[in-house]
């Protein structure tokens, strides 16, 4: 088969920040420190991920990790992605800044998630796995994985958070088009789902529950394995093609950003664009500001605790140190479903803890307004998640003093919003209110999180 010619700007390696900053290797808690583990007698230990993939999450030896040729050929079908200067937006805002954006929504599945979906499907297929089971919040990861599994001749099962699947059922249709089996989560297929439905039949669902259901289903079939689309170091690694391309594309324009901005779900699109820029800034000995934009409905960085926590409702995944609102927190349903995960990933959390990144929380009303402005001026309708990044960027450039040198900013538009037209229509009709966190749920969840950490002797560190 003849492969798509590879553009010279397409990176041949992933950039591994763990080489430069080995202190960011995931800090995980041994379950032997927990009480009650003995209740799980008879539970076998096995690899959830292929070793080659898991190895990437722990690799501190190599600054660059080669991208397999088969994955590169698939990247070549849609990469490099565009980097543009948002001139009309600059004019409309009247700011003292040069605004650049990287656009990841131009592939079939519509978001950056395809960068890791293709890589993960490649490694799972190579390891002999027959089916990947996953949880998805907004559906971008589920769509990307469904397509990648089809490409790699793997089966795919997706548990999609109920509130977002009902907001945009066409996401489910896309996954089915690519051959995936799609379930609404919580479901009655698994014990986790039945437990949640038993407590509240109208439960809107969370990423933690969807992941828990996926883990449970995967455990029932020896040929199936669970996969995640954000948070893990290897996932962020795969996304670094975004930032590496941006470094090269900006260099062609004689530019380097003062500030890099992306939305924050668990950290994959943020890490994808920010980590290579951080590495390039280090190499050049220049400062760089990294800003993560989260949702006020799920303010894990700005209001969470840096503690050991679970990432799924089943409770079998590694217990890692992350900024979290607690795995039992149920964020209000917002259209940016990809920002509803209760915790940031371990790497993004470690960066926030040591001050390498800043964070701001923005409500969906502000972000939809920013998204529409971006559409009017730049001709791209951002996904609701990406619209948070746009809103954060507008806030940054609007504060930059006129008497100083123009601020150069780079923002990641992680996906398109063409499957979110209903949400944009509701906003335009004045039907969308700013949504803040569910204070009662957050208080209960944080208390449980802190109590769990006290029980293992881990002191709480607040923001």
């Amino acid at each position, binding site marked *: 088969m003849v492969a798509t010619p590879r553009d010279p700007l397409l990176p041949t390696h992933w950039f591994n920040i763990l080489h430069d900053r080995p202190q960011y290797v*995931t800090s*995980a808690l*041994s*379950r*032997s*420190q*927990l009480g009650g*583990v*003995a*209740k*799980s*007698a*008879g*539970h*076998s*230990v*096995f*690899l*959830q*991920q*292929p*070793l*080659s993939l*898991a*190895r990437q999450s*722990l690799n501190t030896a190599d600054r660059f990790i080669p991208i397999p040729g088969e994955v590169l050929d698939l990247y070549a079908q849609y990469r490099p992605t565009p980097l543009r200067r948002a001139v009309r937006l600059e004019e409309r805002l009247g700011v003292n800044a040069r605004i650049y954006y990287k656009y990841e929504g131009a592939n079939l599945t519509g978001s950056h998630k395809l960068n890791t979906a293709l890589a993960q499907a490649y*490694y799972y297929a*190579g*390891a*002999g*796995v027959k089916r990947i089971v996953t949880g998805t919040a907004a559906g971008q990861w589920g769509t990307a994985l469904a397509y990648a599994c089809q490409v790699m001749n793997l089966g795919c099962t997706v548990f999609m958070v109920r509130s977002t699947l009902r907001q945009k059922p066409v996401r489910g249709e896309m996954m089915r088009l690519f051959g995936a089996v799609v379930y609404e989560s919580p479901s009655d297929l698994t014990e986790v789902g039945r437990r949640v439905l038993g407590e509240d039949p109208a439960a809107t669902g969370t990423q933690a529950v969807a992941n828990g259901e996926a883990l449970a289903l995967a455990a029932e079939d*020896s040929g199936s*394995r669970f996969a995640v689309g954000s948070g893990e170091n290897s996932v962020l690694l795969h996304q670094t093609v975004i930032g590496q391309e941006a470094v090269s594309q900006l260099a062609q324009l004689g530019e380097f950003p003062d500030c890099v901005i992306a939305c924050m779900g668990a950290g994959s699109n943020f890490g994808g664009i920010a980590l290579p820029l951080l590495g390039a800034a280090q190499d050049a000995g220049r400062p760089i500001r990294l800003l993560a934009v989260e949702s006020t409905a799920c303010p894990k960085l700005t209001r969470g605790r840096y503690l050991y926590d679970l990432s799924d409702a089943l409770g*079998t*995944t*590694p*217990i890692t140190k992350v900024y979290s609102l607690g795995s039992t927190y149920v964020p209000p349903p917002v259209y940016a479903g990809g920002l509803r995960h209760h915790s940031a990933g371990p790497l993004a959390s470690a960066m926030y803890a040591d001050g390498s990144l800043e964070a701001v929380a923005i409500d969906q009303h502000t972000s939809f307004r920013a998204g529409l402005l971006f559409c009017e001026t730049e001709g791209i309708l951002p996904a609701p998640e990406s619209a948070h990044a746009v809103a954060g960027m507008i806030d940054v450039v609007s504060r930059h003093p006129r008497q100083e040198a123009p601020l150069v900013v780079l923002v990641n538009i992680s996906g398109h919003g063409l499957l979110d037209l209903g949400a944009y229509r509701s906003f335009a009709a004045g039907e969308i209110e700013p949504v803040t966190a569910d204070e009662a749920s957050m208080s209960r969840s944080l208390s449980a999180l802190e109590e769990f950490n006290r029980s293992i002797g881990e002191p709480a560190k607040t923001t």
Partner: protein
Amino acid sequence: MATGDSSGPVVRPELNRSQATSLVFQALTVVIPDRPVETLDERQELYADLGLDSLGFVRLLLEFESKLGVQLFDDGLMTIKLLNVGDLIDLIERISLPAVR
């Protein structure tokens, strides 16, 4: 399972049961530092008694790679399910066999 050299020719003696046990205990104390070697025995369950989860299992395999001077490949690893320390020792004996190096 397939293995390969990580750094050219390395002499790796085939391990007997006692040597494999010693290696497994050493590796477990690296991955689970709060478990001293004298508290380990073959009948302990990896998850229920030692708290070893999937990430811990990955770290353990990487520790074996380092100690045995081999690189483990994905092929075949995904089908391995281990219940107790004894299963782990069996695995190390298999890995150290010349036929699977």
